[in-house]
């Protein structure tokens, strides 16, 4: 049943400046699933993610997003936090309000409802007390919570995260993953997450998409993240 899928890639070729990174991909992501996107450095994870999000145009093929509203943006995106320049004087509340920009017309102010929704998203991610703090002054884990809150503020049907646990300590990693699991469970949200951390993926993902030397493998966590399978794919011994 094609209706079960929120995202379908049809013969998709992705890359930068006409340089092909991944060729003729065929993939489907189930609605309501938690999918991990893994692969070694330079395997094209972020390029694929950005193509799915519409940040980079595809070099060929199609990205079919089956969203309930074709006009309202319903993609929640959590970028790598280093991509945001700390020079901007943005508070956590202002940061989360950006998520509502897709619903507020140009030149209009944010309504009280949108502001309340932004506060709720901050509280939902356990970052309520950070509301007035400057985003650039937060720790890695706190920043990640605020970025997830901003993605939730878009009222997404698909939440896309680019390495949300990279560079943060173990306690913060556990907290972020727990938060994502809870959001996925309680809101029946489809989650697509790029992550290098295989044990973390084993804990929260149901499906895995593995990019390896230009090829794509898709399957369940049990199927693809088994130690022997992972070792065979990576061609090395995992510790």
């Amino acid at each position: 049943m094609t209706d079960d899928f929120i995202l379908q890639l049809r013969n998709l070729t992705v890359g930068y400046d006409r340089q092909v990174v991944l060729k003729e991909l065929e993939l489907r992501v189930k609605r309501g699933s938690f999918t991990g996107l893994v692969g070694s450095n330079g395997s094209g994870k972020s390029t694929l993610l950005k193509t799915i999000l519409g940040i980079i145009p595809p070099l060929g093929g199609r990205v079919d997003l089956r969203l309930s509203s074709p006009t309202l943006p319903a993609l929640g995106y959590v970028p790598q936090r280093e991509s945001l320049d700390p020079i901007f004087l943005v508070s956590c509340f202002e940061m989360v309000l950006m998520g509502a920009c897709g619903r507020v017309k140009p030149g209009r102010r944010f309504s009280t409802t949108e502001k309340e929704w932004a506060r709720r998203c901050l509280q939902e991610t356990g970052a309520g007390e950070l509301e007035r703090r400057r985003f650039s002054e937060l720790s890695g884990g706190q920043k990640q919570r605020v970025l997830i809150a901003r993605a939730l503020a878009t009222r997404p049907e698909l939440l896309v995260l680019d390495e949300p646990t990279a560079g943060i300590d173990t306690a913060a990693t556990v907290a972020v993953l727990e938060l994502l699991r809870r959001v996925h469970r309680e809101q029946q949200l489809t989650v697509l997450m790029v992550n290098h951390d295989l044990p973390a993926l084993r804990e929260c993902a149901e499906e895995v998409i593995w990019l390896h030397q230009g090829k794509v493998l898709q399957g369940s966590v049990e199927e693809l993240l088994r130690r022997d399978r992972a070792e065979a794919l990576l061609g090395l011994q995992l510790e």
Partner: protein
Amino acid sequence: MLSTLREMFDPSFLSRNSVAISLLVGFVCPLAGVYLVLRRVVFLGVALPQVSSCGIAFAFALQGWGWIPHAHDSAEERAIAMAGSIVFTLAAILVLSTLERRGRGMIEGRTGTVYVVAGAWSILLLVQNPFGEHGMLELLRGEIVAVSNTDLLITAGAFLVVIITLFTFQKEFLLVSFDREMALTLRKNVLGWDALLFGVIGLVISVSVMTVGPLVAFGFVLLPPLIAYPFCRNMLQFALVSSGVGGVMAVFGFAVAYQQELPVGPTDVALLGVLYAVAWFGQKAAVAMRQRRRARAG
């Protein structure tokens, strides 16, 4: 100083239009400069006034070469110069900002090249064409002496459009400047918003160069935001404090220049430089004091 200020704001003061134009430039230029500082394209603020001057010189040269008819009065002359300034600035900002977004090549190298080449061409065009040399030299020196009512009205009108645009579309400008990728996922027309923002910055710079010259325009675009930045907590505060610093320093600079019989523009910029140094040392001292207090408490 107080008596000078009283004299400056007296309705019968001969240079009242110059005071008004200084104030306008002081308040509005930093509002555009805020975005140049945040987007880390400060060099654009140096290069664009130079390009604008080149546009003015080119407009004068066109008359000298007989490609367009000679202006009959100063109003017509200024209109032609204004057109040259706006066309050159907008074209340069469009090309430079597009290349900056694509991230190709060395941004600083490109902007520096534009700066020196525009400077060289301004001089060559003026040497070739003594027709515009006199007015242009006044402009380059930043002597805000004779400002007609028409100039004042045009500047005020253009700046009003700039202020309304910057405040109305503040959230769009912030989103595309801060997180372009997020803006794209929200299906915003990023290129369109960038073009509008840089168009507004280009308008501020070209109008300012026409009225106060490239040196003063550059000074007020960049120094007030750099002075204000360490003391601000959010974007609105940053814009308002930068604008306030620019406005206050424009009045103060005018008063000092008037009292000491100095050219207004360079005096303004020199004083902004002094304030920047004081603010920088003040901020460092405050941080050091806070750290010492914390260490003592710890």
